[in-house]
């Protein structure tokens, strides 16, 4: 009886094979072949030229993930301590920006960060540049903010912060309140309760938050193009130009995508292993 009901999953398993597994097989096939057909490793040997881009992508994504964690964890924690009603509204407010496509929101940052943008206008209106120029003798008219790595990281943090807050919040919110009470009854101060109980128990949320911020950050191409200009090329931009851009070469693009995917999967596996260890330690 039970097995027959499993048949409900059959169409979707077919779908998975066709549109999840087969495309990845295609990427692997393309990565190991040349335009003329036939097996080659040339796509990978050519990749050394892009080591700088790889390094930059991972550096910026790591920075964005850390900042998201530093902001997102306290926010998730604070929200979970508020009333039910407040919590629901806060969650809605965090989800709401996502319903405006992320490109629209990133575009808005362009007008804030430009050299003649709103922030620089604000600084100049309050006389900040005059002050700095008077103090240092420099001749500053604006802060160069757009087209820098900082702007790209800001764009990543802005877009993916909700992905950090949501999983951490949902783990903390589901936490058994009696555990905290027990810790307090046994004489732990609130700092100790946090360090010994809340933090370890919220680790699964942190791990999934880190994944959900790091993966889109390391592979983004629109954010870097809008806020980083043409100087701060990232892995995503590199892959994009191989598929739709001027440098059309899906074989090289697939190889880059494959390497990126493998590096990310390895990172996540290591992190999850580490996280599981922690969890078990807590259970014991």
């Amino acid at each position: 009886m039970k097995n027959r009901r499993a048949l409900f999953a059959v169409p979707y398993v077919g779908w998975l094979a066709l549109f999840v597994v087969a495309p990845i097989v295609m990427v692997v096939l393309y990565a190991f072949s040349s335009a003329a057909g036939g097996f080659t490793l040339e796509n990978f040997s050519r990749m050394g030229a892009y080591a700088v881009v790889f390094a930059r992508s991972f550096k910026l994504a790591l920075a964005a993930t850390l900042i998201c964690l530093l902001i997102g964890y306290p926010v998730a924690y604070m929200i979970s301590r508020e009333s039910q009603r407040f919590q629901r509204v806060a969650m809605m407010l965090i989800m709401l920006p996502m319903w405006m496509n992320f490109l629209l929101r990133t575009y808005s940052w362009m007008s804030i960060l430009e050299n003649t943008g709103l922030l620089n206008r604000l600084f100049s209106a309050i006389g900040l540049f005059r002050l700095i120029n008077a103090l240092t003798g420099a001749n500053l008219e604006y802060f160069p903010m757009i087209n820098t790595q900082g702007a790209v990281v800001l764009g990543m943090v802005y877009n993916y912060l909700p992905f950090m807050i949501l999983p951490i919040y949902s783990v903390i919110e589901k936490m058994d309140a009696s555990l905290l009470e027990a810790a307090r009854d046994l004489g732990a101060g609130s700092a100790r309760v946090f360090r010994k109980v809340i933090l370890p128990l919220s680790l699964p949320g942190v791990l999934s938050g880190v994944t959900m911020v790091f993966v889109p950050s390391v592979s983004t191409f629109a954010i870097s193009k809008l806020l980083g200009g043409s100087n701060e090329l990232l892995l995503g931009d590199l892959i994009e130009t191989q598929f739709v851009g001027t440098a059309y070469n899906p074989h090289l693009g697939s190889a880059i995508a494959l390497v990126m995917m493998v590096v990310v999967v390895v990172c996540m596996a290591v992190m999850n292993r580490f996280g599981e260890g922690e969890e078990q330690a807590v259970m014991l």
Partner: protein
Amino acid sequence: MSAKPSRLNRVLMALVFLFLYAPIFVLIVFSFNDSQSRTVWQGFTLRWYVELLQDRAIMSALWTTLLVSLLATAIATVAGTMAAVGFFNMKKRWRGPILTVNNIPMTNADIVTGVSLCLLFVAFFAGWGDFTRWFNSLQGLVHLPTRLHMGFGTLLIAHLTFDIPYVILNVMPKLRQMDKNLIDAAQDLGCTWMQAFWKVVLPEIKPGIVSGALIAFTMSVDDFVISYFTAGSATSTLAMVVYGMTKRRISPKINAISSLLFVTVLTLLIVVNVREARQEKALEERKL
């Protein structure tokens, strides 16, 4: 959790929300700006809204975005719930690996999902071309089109591919939490399995289905990267139009459409929230 929020906490939270909403606020304010500039205020106007309604490209992109998101959400909700029921009844030996594959679209980078689907579609179209040329030359009765392109169909397939896993992810835990005796009880009382499903299982897992559908819709509306690689050159979503404009100049019409979207979503959320709050209140009063 004990509620003892300090004032400092509130201030910090307010700052984060300011950070999240400042760009949206800027976007809305400059949709009323009487100038092409996106940084200098030149006076109030509604002309961008008027021009927006006359802009065929943006309106059709809006239509494509809404249609693909709504269709993908509806289909993904049904298919995902069905698949979740199937997985739930599956032997663990099979379920584990399949759920791992199911997680791939969620954990994989969007760009990898996008380009891999793009490669698949291109390869399929090439194969289809060869097949139809052979098939058409074989007989003269049915003429199959030999050239297929990426378009709305491939866009929809791509959206379904990343939407369904979210529905499954939300429905599975509800199935696990459900008291299994309920189904047995319903069947003992004379329900067929199908009746038991509609009358017992479905109401139990409904919160999971609703939140799954909501997340699927959010992901569809928010997506740019996967659509970009799978929609082809003739079909555009709103995000693709914006991206195309960044190479030249972004029109304030984009600000106008963003503001309209934001206000619509905000209104919807407020209505839903107020209704939920009222229902909860009524429930509490009844309990008293």
